[in-house]
Structures are given as C-alpha cells and as structure tokens.
C-alpha cells in the first residue's frame, strides 16, 4: 500500500509539469494582447507599455517566459496578477470558498444520491422508483444555469428563504443553495448508478446466501448489497470532486460566489497567464489526489482488491 501510494505521488510530478506547460502555452497562444487590453482602447504611452510588458515578462519568447515562471515557482512565487496582487493571495482567497462549495455539493450528491438510489433499487418498479427515475431524468436534461436561475429566483427572490447571492464570507449556510444546484446533476447520476448496481447485486449468490443464513434485512442491504454496489459510485464521486471544483464557473457566476471558477474565468479573458496556470495546477493536484483516494477506497470496499 505504501509503495503504491508513493508511486502515485511520483506520477504527480510529470502530470503537474505537463499540465502547466500545456496550459501556459494555450493561454500564451490565445489571440489578443493583454497589455493593449489593459488600457481599454484608450491611449497608452510607449514607456508605460514597455514597462508593463517587462514587468510581466511579456516581452520574452515563450520558453523564457515559462522558464522564468518555473524558476519562481521553486520559491513558491506564483507571479503577479495584472491588478498587482500576488497570485498566491488570489488562490488562498478563492480555493477555500470553492472547496467548501465542492465538498458540500459532493456531500449532498453522495448522501441523497445513494439513499434514493438504494431505496429505488430495492423497490424496483414501484412508485418511488418511477418517480425518482423520472425526476432524475429531468434534472439531467435541464442545463445547470437554468436550474440555478430558477432556484435563485424562487428561493431567493419570491420566497425570500435565502439571499440570492452569497456574501463575501461565503459561509456554509449561504452555500447550501449554490451547492445544491452544483450537486444536483451529479446527484441524478449517483442515484441512477447506485440503483442499477443495487438491482444487479440483489440477485447475486452471496446475497441469497446471506439471506438464507438468516441475517437481518438491514444487514443484508447495508453490508452485503450496498457495499458491493458502491465501487462504481465511489469512482464517479472521486472524479466528480475535481470537476466540481473546476467546473463551478456557472454556479459561482449565478450566485456571485468569489471562488476558483470566477477567478479562472476572468483570468482567461484577461490573458493573465500566471493566474490561469496556478489555478489549473492546483486543480490537477486535487484531481490526482481525489483519484488516489478513490483507488484506496476500493481496497476497503472490496477485500479482493489489494495493492502491492
């Protein structure tokens, strides 16, 4: 197990550098000159322009720019944003907010998705099963931003149960609504995944054996069926954590959450390479770590799986 984990950590290194190099190049290659855009179409004296270019190394060719970036990275200097702030500070502000949002969304989709999935799977064909299947289909079909706007309007404006946007603190309470929106589509997938898996395992020999042994229904369902059914669900949840963190742009925009999604979006538009690369770099690490945790969870869920 230990050497397995260590190997996976080693893998992180090429993945990280490959991803940052690729992203650096992609942003570098996007059309448009960020410095010209800074002036907003108003004049800029040549001296000011030259000095800004030099400040952000934009007067250098690609490889030197990237090299300088890596050099600074060693000392944990992630560079400066065009607004003159440390990119490190931007990350420190934005990531906890998005992490809170993503963890809440993950919790919502895991708890409700698995719960409803188990009930639906155990009562296949009954009214509960039909209802949640139909509801999940709708949730999957409706785009997130429609769902977000509708919930924001109904809950935030019409009913007044919550504020339509979060405050700067983005507290747990305020994030319930955005997290629900963010997690809803995945919840539908988790539900369907769990249901299918449960229905499959329900017929398995070991379940019949367990029931024949006289075990209680609760134990059969929770330990024998559910535990074996969770492997695909956990895989999905693990991969989803990464996409929840990186893919919250729409939700963060609707509820004005000052998180990673909005940071990344505005940085891409401005052509602010250091910010984009730093955000993506952290997301890559999160993604890889989440997958590592998933792999380790397999061993817990299914004793047949062993890592040498």
């Amino acid at each position, binding site marked *: 197990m230990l050497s397995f984990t260590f190997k996976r950590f080693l893998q992180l290194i090429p993945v990280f550098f490959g991803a940052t190099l690729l992203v650096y190049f992609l942003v570098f290659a*996007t*059309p*448009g*000159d*960020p410095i*010209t*855009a*800074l*002036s*907003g*179409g*108003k*004049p*800029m*004296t*040549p*001296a*000011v322009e*030259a*000095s*800004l270019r030099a*400040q952000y190394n934009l007067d250098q060719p690609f490889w030197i720019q990237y090299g300088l970036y890596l050099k600074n990275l060693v000392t944990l200097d992630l560079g400066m944003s*065009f*607004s*003159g*702030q440390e990119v490190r*500070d*931007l990350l420190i*502000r*934005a990531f906890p907010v998005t992490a809170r949002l993503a963890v809440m969304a993950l919790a919502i989709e895991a708890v409700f998705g698995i719960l409803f999935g188990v009930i639906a799977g155990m009562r296949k064909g009954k009214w509960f099963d039909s209802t949640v299947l139909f509801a999940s289909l709708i949730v999957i079909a409706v785009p997130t931003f429609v769902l977000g*706007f509708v919930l*924001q*309007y109904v809950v*935030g*404006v019409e009913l*007044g149960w919550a*504020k*339509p*946007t979060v405050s*700067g603190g983005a507290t747990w309470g305020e994030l319930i609504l955005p997290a629900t929106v963010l997690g809803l589509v995945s919840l539908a997938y988790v539900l369907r995944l769990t249901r299918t898996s449960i229905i499959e395992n329900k017929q398995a020999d070991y379940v019949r054996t367990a029931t024949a042994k006289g075990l209680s229904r609760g134990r059969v369902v929770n330990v024998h069926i559910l535990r074996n059914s969770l492997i695909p669900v956990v895989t999905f949840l693990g991969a989803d954590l990464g996409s929840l963190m990186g893919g919250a742009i729409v939700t*963060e*925009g*609707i*509820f*004005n959450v*000052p998180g990673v999604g*909005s*940071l990344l*979006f*505005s940085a891409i*538009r*401005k*052509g602010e390479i250091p910010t984009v690369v730093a955000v993506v770099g952290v997301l890559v690490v999160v993604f890889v770590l989440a997958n590592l945790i998933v792999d380790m969870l397999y061993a817990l869920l299914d004793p047949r799986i062993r890592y040498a």
Partner: protein
Amino acid sequence: MRYSHASKALVLSAALALTLTACGGGTSEESAGGGSEGDATKVITANTTEPQNGLLPANTNEVGGGRVMDLIFTGLVSYDSKGKPVNEIAESIETEDSQNYTIKLAPGHTFSDGSPVTAASFVDAWNFGAAAKNAQLNSYFFESIKGYDEVSAEGATSEEMEGLKVVDDNTFTVELSQPESDFPLRLGYTAFMPLPEAAFEDPKAYGQMPVSNGPYKLTEWNHDVNLKLEVNESYEGPRKAANGGVDFKVYQSTESAYQDILAGNLDVLDQIPPSALANYQDELGDRSINAPYAGNATITISGYLDHFKQGEEGNLRRAAISRSIDRQQIIEKVYFGGKVKAEEFTAPVLDGYTADIPGSEVLDFDADEAKKLWDEANAIEAWGDSEEFSIGYNVDGAGNKEFVEAVANQVKNTLGINAVAKPYTSFKALREDVGKKTMSGAHRSGWQADYPSMYNFLGALYGTGAGSNDGDYSNKEFDDKLTDGLAATDPAEGAKIFNESQEILFKDLPAIPLWYQAVQGGWSENVDNVEFGWNGVPIYNAITGK
C-alpha cells in the same frame, strides 16, 4: 473613463446598455427633487466590479476603480449631475491665454489622516502620474502640460514637469505646451487628484488602502468581495455625504446583482442586465431609471482599408454605408426602443451640443440615396462581387453581436453587397488587430467621456496621431479647427468652432455615429434620492435611506 471589458460593460462596447422606453430620468428627479429627508445614517450597498489596479489616481482607468476613486478623493473641481465643474479644493482657476493657469486652493482642506492638502499635493501627484518610471495607465492625461515629453519618454530620468510650479502652499501655476481652453474642465477627472506625501514612499501599498480627501474614506478592501467606504468627517465641500457610508459589493455579473435588487439584498444597481431589460420597469416601477449619459456608439472604418481611403471614393462609400443604416429601427428592435439616435460625433449631455450641424443628414436612413452614393463610388473604382465588407466586434461584450449583425444586415440589404459581422473571441483580440492596424474591415467602436467636454471626443478619436485614433484619420483642416477651438478663451466660442470641425467629419466620416448611450439602473425599497450623473454613474453621496 473606460468600462472594463471584463465587466461586460459599456466601454467601447457600450452596446450592453440597452433601453426600454425613454423615460429619461424623470423618476429619479421626482424623488430627488421631492426633498425627502431620508435616513442619513444608512450605509448604502451598491454594485461594482473589482478595481483592476491599486487605487492610485493616475492608474485607475476603468469604472470599477473609478467610482471608488471619485468618492474617496476630491480634486480641484468635481462635476455636478449635469457635468458642470464645481470648485472643490480650488478657490480659483485663472488664465488669460488658456495656456498659463494660476490655481489658488481654498485653505484648510486636509486628507483623512489630518495632513493638509497643499499645492505640492497636486504638483507631486501629477508629476508622479506622468513620470515614465511609475508606469501609470493614465499618464497621457498630463500630455498637455509643458515638459511632459521629457518625463514620459522611455528611460526618462527627469521626473518633474517644467510646466508645474508651486508658488506657495495654496498656489501653483500650470503652463501648457499650447493653449487649451478645456483644461479646467479636465481637472475633475480621477487622474488629477492630489496625493498626500505618504503616498510616494510606497505607492503600491498606498494604493491598497489610500489616505484620501474625498467625501468618503476607504476602510476595508476585501479583494473580489467588497470595498467599504465610511464617511470622511473632515471633508468640506459640495458633495458631503447624505448617508452613513457606501458598501460596494463586487459582482461577477449584473444578473446576480439584479436578483439582489429584487430581493432587497442590494440598494443600488447601475446596470440592468440584458435579460431583465424587457421587464425591469414593471418589476421595479419608479425605482428604475433610464438616463442618457456622455457616451456614444460608432462604427470605425479605418482609413487604410481598400476602397475606404480618404478621398472621393472612400467618402462616397462611407456616406453610402451610413445612409443605409436605419438606426431608429435597430434602436427599437434590438434595444427595445431605448438609446437615442446619434446626430453628431459627441454626446448630448455636453455643453455646446447641437443636433443641427450641417451635413448631419448623412446619419439619416435613405436607401435610394445610399445606393446612388455607392454607385457613384463604383464609377470611380468598381467594388468586386467577391469583396466583403465586414464589421468586427468582440463577443465577450454582451449585446455587441445583436447590434453589429443588425447593422451588417441593413448594409447588405440596402446596398446589395456582402456585408458581414465578424466576431472576435475577446476584447483583447479585437484591440490587438485595431492597435496594430491590421483590420480587414470596419469595427465597432465608441467613446465614453472622461471629462465633460466635446474636445474629449473629437481630439482623442479624430485628431491626427491621437492615441485613440484607431482609423488613422488625418485631416489638416480638422486639426486646425481643433487647435482654434482649444485656443478660444470663451467656452461658447470654442464649442462653436468644435461644431464647425464636425462639419468636416461629416464629409470624411472617419467613423459612423450610430446612437448615444443611456444608463439603465434600479434601486431597492430601502433607499431614496437616487440620481445618476452625467457619466452614467450614480451620485452615491446624495443617496439616503428611507
């Protein structure tokens, strides 16, 4: 002042500010004029975008930072709601030749830390803003001052402009390199604010939490979240706060800000999102406003384009395109009847504005005349069947696509040529092509006044070699008119000459004016006395609680 491209705002793009019906600000004037006292202790919440730079006067060139700067700083003059300059720190600004100015300060003004506002506070701040080594974005605002070239050149060692001289604590003189009668009008712009001595020790740190002299002081700045302004008790002047402070909340989109207005979670919103334009007046009733401000939308056809070079053929084609655009129809269909059709090259809220400049009929839709002009141009040099007339726009500014496509369609239908709307992925991509003069067609443009003066439009956009003259327009006769207009000591005389200069523009059409901008805003039930200024920004200091 430019609107940040990132804030999908009104910049060059301008197009976002759609309108429903031209109710022209009647509502706000009623409530403001009603003289309701209101609650003077309420802290007003308002929307903003994250300031793009530290809060230094000469480095703030977009609205997110600009609206904060205007509240926490005060300069020699400020502008009232109609754009008229009113003395703030200045006691008098005198000149006999529009070139040499003597500026006297009213004594007793202080920064919020107690240090006095002196002549040196201005002179040092302006020198700081102009000097190349400080790389301030608004540096070019000082270009009229004598000695600017020496301090602003790359690698310049001198940091003090020759034209600025401190006489005593409360007096300084300004010498310009040529007579410019609208110089005093500029002095209310952000770039001309004074700075305390402490600012120069560490400008970067200062910009994060400036000590200032305006009606408010900044007490908290949580990046990407909010900026909190408290009333500055030491401020004496015409803009004294009628409320307990302003809390600016940073929004990523006006959509979410609008929801907050509906829910009473935000007090003042200065831009109704496009999605709400169809019904914001129903939803907000007399808590909404639609008021014109000093900005316009145009289409620039660069002078280096084939068939459009300055001269007979080019002028005919430009006029033909202008006459083939039914502006009123686009205003009604795309902007729900808002906006006001352009009648000239500046904006109606400015002193000297007139809709009756000879030649302005070229802005009226006339399909027959358009075709006739186009045919005349074809007689000089034929327009090939495979040739294309494109109008570039950036897709990241909301509303651009709709109006540019409408314009292109009208040109296509009227003239029977292949006119297309050409999308650019981002503002920076469009600006790069424009800046490098590598456009293959026309492009969407526009101007938002920095200070209330016609010259701010005409000089910056169409003067030979001017920084924002994207179309490479150059006409000696026009330049001379500008110089004369600036040299006029009587503002009315100056405006008359500027309007004469526009007659030349109507012949050459370096850009084709489309319409004037208007601001659509709204406010919650918790506030009163909301009015919007000449530049489309709410007059925050006058807002009261209910």
